[in-house]
């Protein structure tokens, strides 16, 4: 490790590794990534790997569409497998209110160029023959949505960034950030050592608020446990990731055949707790069989949990801040950081290197909370 770096990145998930890669790709190789556990140990490695463009807010739709473009060529770009697979996303509506919402959403998404359509229950059953269409009013389907392997994608960015000259400090924790004259100066590690930094990127996922606070910045990002389970591998049953807003669940079949599923518990308090619960196992299995009864016969293999980094409007906070020069962040993804990670990281690297971005990040700036702006993203599960 050197005495100092042009850019120090805190967090070794999708954002930290991808920002490092895009900086190095554009010629800025004086970069250090600090990860306190191991690469992909936080939210990235615990996520469901879904890649969805069917969002409610324009900012999320644009980031996701840009990311899908990148995912499509990422294996070749990184020289690493990604298991990117475009089986689509099927979103189910069971109430007239949801149907109205779906119609509005599709209109906005189509106006931004997304190939998505509203379909009837019959067509939904054609796409996924095993779904229960009882009470189903309609669905939306986007064939270019899909999923990728979060470990592979993150390891791919990590290896390529290293190849390009990025330095890594793994197993060390950031304990403090030195700010003088409203400018980032250095990072202090928990062992007391000091690394000078001209710029700092907060990519700390569920721990982003703590890192921001070290730089004297308060961001409304709170960690919330979300649980997942996966079944034993079974024969191919369905292609798309399925979201049912009635049960508040999502599930998808992995390439190896396992069915991965999760739901958001509105009662879940803010905490760093990532333990699994039997409550989740019981509720999840009940909800998923309402949507796909045939899964009753499949066995649950493993369950785990990770943190959603929630913001008040469920949209990320991306960019710099007025108070501290040299401080950048890509945080608060509220459960969809992996899928928008590639485009977000490319834009953040662009911002650090040139001071501007080719796609406006204004709506995602930290300022929106002070100004009382920001539209709530409702499509989070």
């Amino acid at each position, binding site marked *: 490790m050197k005495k100092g770096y042009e850019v120090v990145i805190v967090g070794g998930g999708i954002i930290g590794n991808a920002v490092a890669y895009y900086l190095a790709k554009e010629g800025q190789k004086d970069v250090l990534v600090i990860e306190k*556990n191991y690469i992909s140990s936080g939210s990235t490695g615990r996520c469901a790997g879904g890649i969805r463009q069917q969002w409610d807010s324009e900012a999320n739709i644009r980031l996701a569409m840009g990311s899908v473009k990148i995912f499509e060529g990422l294996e070749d770009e990184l020289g690493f497998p990604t298991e990117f697979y475009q089986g689509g996303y099927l979103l189910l509506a069971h109430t007239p209110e949801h149907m109205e919402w779906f119609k509005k959403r599709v209109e906005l998404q189509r106006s931004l160029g997304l190939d998505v359509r509203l379909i009837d229950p019959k067509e939904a059953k054609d796409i996924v023959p095993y779904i229960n269409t009882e009470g189903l009013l309609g669905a939306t389907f986007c064939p270019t949505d899909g999923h990728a392997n979060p470990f592979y994608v993150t*390891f791919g960015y990590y290896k390529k960034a290293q190849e390009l000259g990025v330095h890594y400090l793994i197993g060390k924790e950031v304990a403090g950030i030195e700010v003088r004259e409203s400018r980032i100066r250095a990072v202090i590690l928990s062992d007391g050592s000091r690394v000078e930094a001209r710029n700092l990127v907060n990519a700390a996922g569920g721990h982003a608020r703590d890192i921001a606070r070290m730089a004297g910045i308060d961001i409304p990002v709170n960690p919330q446990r979300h649980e997942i389970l996966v079944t034993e591998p079974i024969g191919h049953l369905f292609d798309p990731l399925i979201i049912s807003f009635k049960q508040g669940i999502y599930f998808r079949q992995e390439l190896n055949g396992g069915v991965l599923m999760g739901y958001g518990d509105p009662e879940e308090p803010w905490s760093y707790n990532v333990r699994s619960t039997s409550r989740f196992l*019981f509720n999840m299995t009940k909800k998923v*069989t309402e949507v796909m009864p045939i*899964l009753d*016969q499949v066995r*649950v293999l*493993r369950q785990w949990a990770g943190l959603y980094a929630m913001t008040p409007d469920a949209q990320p906070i991306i960019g710099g801040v007025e108070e501290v020069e040299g401080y950048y962040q890509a945080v608060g993804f509220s459960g969809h950081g992996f899928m928008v990670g590639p485009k977000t990281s490319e834009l953040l690297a662009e911002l650090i290197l040139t001071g501007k971005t080719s796609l406006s990040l204004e709506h995602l700036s930290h300022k929106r909370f002070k100004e009382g702006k920001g539209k709530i993203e409702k499509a989070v599960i």
Partner: protein
Amino acid sequence: MQGIDKRGDPIICRCNDVTESEIVEVIKKGFTDIEEIKRLLRIGMGPCQGRTCIPLVMRIIARETGVNVDEITPPTSRPPIIPIPIEVARKAAE
């Protein structure tokens, strides 16, 4: 021979069909943490939950990287201990 594939390469993870040389290969690529190896090769993610393979993988890492096997922490074990049918879990809630 039982447990040896055609290339004479012992299968370490029987759930996900991972051989010794595949493990050595990722270690040589720089993935030396057992958590990373687990995620790359899906070792310990099958029905046995790592009971068969993890101690073997720890010994291979120790041998290849020169660390003492006692210094390697096994990955977090995930519930359930044995696979259970969704129907059984679902009915347990009622």
